[in-house]
């Protein structure tokens, strides 16, 4: 069973071998380190860039315009804020040129809390990203989806953002949810594709033969069926929502959980079908509450089927504060955790018209 970060690495390997990716680059992305989170170890097309996020995004766009499919990494999304005008430009190459150009690039970046990253390694990016139109935006909650979403981003002719929840990077695939083609155990896989500590100059990875997997752009997944309420989440909070739903089943509450997977474009049809059935909607993510992508979904829910709802739609998100404090208690209090998610679901299920 691979971890999410190994899944990302294997997808990049497949992309450079079979899908024409010419460049995988960013700060410390190439040898010897292979990425601050090891996402790019052992890849043929990985190289180190200068420490310059604007240069990384600009060069990625330039390569893309010249027909080079590429994946650029921003080491932490906390350091992508100084690239926002370039992200806006990347997202409008087609639109501003009235369809004359396209820009086939993927920007990947680790997002969110969960590793005690303190103020400047814990920011979320989904609220900001979804405000930059012209990009397709994917955010996985498990290794297999990470693999398939990243490949889907890479083969798309449009600019794509691939947001990797830091908290889930070491998480393992659930039984039955493995990427096909890996016929070794965790230690075996690590031997094959994790760079050794110390001198790596003579190391080459032994890639398992994993297939092309794609997730159609904009397709969410219903990861748990339920009749009482609909919970829509993505990234770090998704597995917490599933866990909360499982525990609430003992109380007789059956929650449906949707993993959005693509934030742009997003699977409104699936949300709509589910919420119309359950009459209750909770949107969970950890970006700051003001203003938040979940708020948009809640607004649409309210506007489009107000009279079919049994309770006001709810958003559970990160606190509206400038950053996330380092101490355990500070981080835990800043973003949704299992208890607050469980409570929010319980309250919503109990709320009556």
């Amino acid at each position, binding site marked *: 069973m691979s971890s999410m970060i190994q899944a990302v690495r294997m997808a990049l390997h497949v992309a450079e071998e079979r899908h*024409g990716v*010419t*460049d995988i680059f960013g700060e410390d992305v190439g040898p010897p380190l292979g990425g601050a989170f090891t996402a790019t170890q052992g890849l043929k097309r990985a190289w180190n*860039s*200068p420490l*310059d996020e*604007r*240069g990384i*995004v*600009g*060069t*990625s*766009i*330039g*390569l*893309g*315009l*010249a*027909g*080079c*499919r590429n994946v650029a990494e921003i080491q932490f999304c906390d350091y992508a804020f100084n690239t926002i*005008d*370039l992200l806006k*430009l990347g997202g*409008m*190459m*087609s*639109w*501003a*040129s*009235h*369809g*004359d*150009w*396209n*820009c*086939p690039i993927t920007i990947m970046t680790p997002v969110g809390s969960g590793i005690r990253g303190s103020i400047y390694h814990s920011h979320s990016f989904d609220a900001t990203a979804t405000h930059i*139109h*012209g990009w*397709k935006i994917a955010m996985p909650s498990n290794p297999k989806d990470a693999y398939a979403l990243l490949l889907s981003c890479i083969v798309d*002719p*449009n600019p794509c953002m691939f947001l990797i929840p830091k908290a889930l990077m070491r998480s393992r695939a659930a039984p039955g949810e493995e990427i096909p083609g890996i016929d070794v155990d965790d230690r075996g896989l690590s031997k094959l594709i994790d760079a050794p500590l110390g001198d790596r100059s003579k190391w080459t990875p032994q890639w398992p033969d994993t297939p092309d997997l794609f997730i159609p752009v904009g397709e969410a997944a219903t990861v748990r069926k339920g009749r009482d309420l609909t919970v829509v989440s993505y990234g770090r909070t998704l597995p917490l929502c599933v866990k909360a739903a499982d525990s609430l089943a003992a109380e007789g509450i059956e929650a449906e959980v949707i993993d959005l997977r693509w934030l742009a474009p997003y699977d409104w049809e699936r949300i709509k079908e589910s919420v119309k059935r359950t009459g209750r909607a909770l949107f969970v993510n950890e970006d700051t509450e003001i203003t938040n992508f979940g708020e948009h979904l809640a607004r649409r829910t309210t506007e489009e089927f107000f009279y079919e709802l049994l309770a006001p739609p709810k958003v559970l998100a990160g606190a509206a504060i400038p950053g996330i404090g380092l101490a355990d208690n500070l981080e835990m209090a800043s973003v949704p955790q299992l208890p607050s998610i469980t409570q929010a679901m319980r309250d919503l299920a109990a709320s009556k018209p």
Partner: protein
Amino acid sequence: MSIDPNAPLTNEQLIKLHSLMVQGRVLEERLIQMYKQGDGYFWIGGPGEEAFNVPLGMLIHKGQGPEFDYLHFHYRQSATLLAMGADPVDALRQMKNTATDPYSGGRNFGGHPSIRKWNIVPVASTIETQYTMAPGTAMAQKRHGGRGITIVTGGDAGTAEGDFATCLVWSSRPMEPLPVLMIVTNNKWGISTAAAPQHGEKNVADRGRAFGIECKTIDGNDPEVAWREIASAMEYVRTTRRPFLLESIVSRLYGHSSASGANPVTDEADCLKGFEARLEARKILTREQMDSLRQKFTDELQLAHRRVREEPQPDGKTIYDHVFQTRDLVRGG
């Protein structure tokens, strides 16, 4: 095909250069008139830069893909486009934001072209961002081989942005120097802010030295000097596959843009006047010939203006068109 930068221009070339400079000037004057008559919301362009921008366009290796030059322009490049063979009427269409505007379908300001078949990437109003993208296209060209280079243009004030430093750093990395011709057209102004009190460096081009980048500051008001220096810088970049920083001193003959009135200024050198005096003295063209040429372009563009005025405006229902592409055009898909 390489060009000998030091070969003097033939009379035929000088006449062509002159004709394009006149056409470029007349085009800008027409665009300003369109703005003043309410046939455009905003004007920005390059009157006063023709002596540099025309030779640049004539020397560009025009086409699609890494074999040809990639062009990351700013908003003062209309004369360069003319010299490349663009239809001046398309500049009028963008000015009037018509549905027929081939550069942006009425979405962008005049002076903001985009032509994929000539590797002209969409011009953006954001100062200096084009310098962050130039290394990317140049990287593709370096690997592709051949003589294609990346050319990026911008003004002097914008070089204070970090994006200018990005281009210096990324195009001169010792592991992979890039075929980028960095051009700065220095008109000594950023809107209303004079360069002198803001910039300690003597010449903008000097900043290339720290990176081992060949650099030069030239008189961009003399088209023969500009031709020679652009040709020579291009030849260097084409053959060595390394960057070059070329600073060209130019004039700004109608101020920054319509935001500052778009009125003629009288205290800056007019490259066209200087060149015409020279052509007359050398008996290459007579005053009458030059006057009638100007009249011809003026009449043509006046007629075109009337025509463009009647062309349809884009439909509000099209705002969502082209947010995403279904085809991978840049990869030939």
